[in-house]
């Protein structure tokens, strides 16, 4: 049983890591095709991606859209969670349902709807419209995460602050937000990774300036290319670094 377990574990890890290993290995391929045989190690493709203006500006665009849209999503989600957790509002169950609704619809459908809306009202496609779309997909997530972590403990502290004369905005900024910092940060981080990696909405709603996944998609049209391996490896490395950083800061502290 034990041996069988280890065998299964090894096979599963093999399957899970196979594409990543192939991706990273052949990003160093000294040749034009990222497939075997492996012809030797070169850093040429990494040099090429860092010299590629389109790719680098796409990377920057992705970063700006991810950070900007996540900031909006987490702020709106936080305020809405606070309102629904702390105030008695008529129809609050419906409001929760409405805010969570985009979670049940695929990104393609959300993107298509927004594309038609922007066409109707004559709003030109740009990174701004991509950002609007990314807030739509991330706001429900931020709301859900922050709402779930609002407990009685914060409520008591908020009441105490109010009794001492704090205004609503002071309570929000000085009491609630710091107490909920781990879940606010987790919501923000998840939101950034989703936006950073999102393809279909960015593809439908961007025009001249594109985000990184869309630019990588454009590169795929020219077929297999070690340059695509290189940019893919760089993106992977950045994500891994973020996850490890998060593991050692936020989640470690919460335990």
């Amino acid at each position, binding site marked *: 049983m034990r041996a069988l377990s280890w065998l299964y574990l090894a096979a599963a890890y093999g399957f899970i890591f196979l594409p990543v290993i192939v991706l990273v290995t052949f990003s160093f391929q000294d040749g034009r095709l990222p497939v*075997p045989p492996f012809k030797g190690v070169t850093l040429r493709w990494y040099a090429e991606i860092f010299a590629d203006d389109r790719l680098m500006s796409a990377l920057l665009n992705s970063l700006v859209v991810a950070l900007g849209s996540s900031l909006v999503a987490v702020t709106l989600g936080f*305020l809405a969670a606070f309102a629904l957790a702390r105030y008695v509002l008529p129809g609050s169950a419906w409001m929760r349902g409405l805010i969570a609704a985009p979670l049940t619809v695929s990104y393609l459908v959300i993107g298509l709807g927004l594309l*038609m809306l922007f066409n109707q009202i004559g709003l030109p496609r740009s990174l701004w419209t991509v950002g609007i779309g990314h807030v739509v997909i991330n706001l429900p997530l931020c709301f859900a995460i922050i709402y779930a972590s609002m407990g009685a403990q914060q409520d008591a502290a908020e009441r105490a602050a109010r009794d001492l004369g704090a205004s609503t905005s002071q309570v929000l900024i000085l009491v609630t937000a710091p107490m909920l910092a781990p879940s606010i940060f987790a919501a923000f981080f998840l939101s950034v990774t989703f936006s950073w990696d999102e393809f279909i909405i960015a593809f439908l709603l961007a025009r001249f300036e594109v985000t990184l996944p869309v630019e990588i998609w454009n590169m795929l049209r020219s077929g297999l290319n070690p340059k695509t391996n290189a940019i*893919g490896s760089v993106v992977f490395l950045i994500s891994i670094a*973020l996850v490890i950083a998060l593991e050692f800061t936020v989640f470690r502290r919460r335990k």
Partner: protein
Amino acid sequence: MHTTKTGWGLLAPALLWIVAFFTVPMALMVAVSLWSREKGKIVQTWDLGNYANFLEKSYFMQGLVNSLEITALVTIISVLLAYPLAWIIAEQVPARFRRLALILAILPFWTSYVVRSYSWLLVLGKGGIVNQTLLSIGLIAEPLEIASTRAATVIGFVHFFTMLLTLTIYANLVQLPPNYRRAAADLGASGLQTFRHVILPLTLPGIMVGAFLTFVLCIGDYITPQILGGNNELTLPQIIMLQIGRRADFPMASAIALILMSVVTVAYIACARWLRLERV
């Protein structure tokens, strides 16, 4: 209690955003699906022509069938692969390494979505690792056509969703009190009986949530079938993109998108009783 007015004020921005950029586009989509595209122009016909068209043309119906078959296959295979993996990590791996084992199992989750499909193309393509290996050990004489087939799409999807399901099932397994297993053993149940009558029923909610997530994400995905499956067997998302891109037929695209949404809704209703998320 604090004033209700402030509450509405705090809620308003989020609510307005969702209404303006989600509810309104969805309503617009329903309206547009009742229009049609005639001689290159969008006409507000207000009829069910696009839906009738969908049901009549085998091109569209085959897309629906392809989507459903691929999604069902992916969901089943992923659950079957992920369950043992989650179980081994939760039960067999020493506690010290458990978290590390779990993080490793979902690490490639963080590769970019587009890049992940591309990586499988490298593995499965004509000159890829799989074909080269099989050729060199003499198992096959000609390279297999794996890329641009349904098999490639399914492999790419299974890879992604096995990681996702391992996470949800693991979360469920570690919450089970060890006493249950001991109690079953004390009452004379064998390992297999304990699994069938105790562990499996208790982890069913986690499986169902994961399976539902898999279903929803898989059936709505464009990238994986487009990169790995190619254009031989189209799925609904691919057909929607073709309607938008090649033909600018927004009415037809809207109708198909709404059909896709209703399929997901049916699936949700079908497994609603297992999906109470707070139980996971």
